[in-house]
């Protein structure tokens, strides 16, 4: 028998899932409305809301950077966890490959987001 019990890594993924779920529940609909509908159609908000100058300034701000990273990364981790656990429900017996694909995708997205935010500078 193994002397040390292996610690489960599930709480980490669950915490990321929960955080992303909460963030997307609180802000998701309004974000979609702003970035996907109001700004492209020129409704509700000033025309230059998402202009390059505005978005650059926002992404150069430390708080702005944190907000962008939290939204993208946590949304991805939330979705990855949910999709991974739904695979079983639709008859796909998810193994290590599916786990790598789901969580690996979220990790890759997180790294790309962090890299872009660093490249944009302060």
């Amino acid at each position, binding site marked *: 028998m193994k002397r040390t019990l292996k610690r489960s890594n599930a709480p980490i993924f669950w915490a990321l899932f929960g955080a*992303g*779920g*909460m963030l*997307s*529940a*609180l*802000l*998701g*609909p*309004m*974000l*979609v*409305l*702003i*970035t*996907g*509908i109001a*700004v*492209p*159609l020129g409704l509700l*908000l*000033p025309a*230059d*809301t*998402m202009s*390059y100058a*505005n*978005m*650059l300034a*926002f*992404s150069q701000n430390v708080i702005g950077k944190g907000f*962008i990273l939290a*939204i*993208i990364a946590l*949304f*991805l981790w*939330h*979705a*990855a966890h*949910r*999709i991974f*656990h*739904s695979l079983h*429900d639709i*008859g796909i017996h998810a193994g290590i490959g599916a786990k790598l694909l789901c969580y690996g995708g979220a990790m890759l*997205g997180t790294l*790309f*987001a962090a890299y*872009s*935010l660093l*490249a*944009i500078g302060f």
Partner: protein
Amino acid sequence: MNKRRPYVRPMDGWWRRNPFFVEYMIHEGTALFVAAYAGILLNGLLHLSRGEAAWNVWLEGLKNPLYIAFHVLALVAISYHTYTWFKIMPRTMPPVIVGGKRLPDGAITGGGLAVAAAASLVLLLAVWGMAR
């Protein structure tokens, strides 16, 4: 070659036979929209880091009717996620005891939805204030 052919009850479409599980699959399915939306934002961020011309390509792309249609669907799906997230919250969080009594489910769900509405309003006002 194994001659045993044990009966395995087919599970195809199991969730379609029960409205409870149809709802479950729909609220789990909202994750696809959350993932796709995060992907769109990530793509935008990558464009932003490559300068003004690249950013404007992405921004113009959002005006494509297909993108607009996707975002309308995503708005519905993620709003539904908000509703179900707080609807199941009484069961996903530890019981809250107030004054020796368990906080009723409706108070947790209603409170969560009220906080979501307030957060959305604050976000809209913040964006409006920053853009002005």
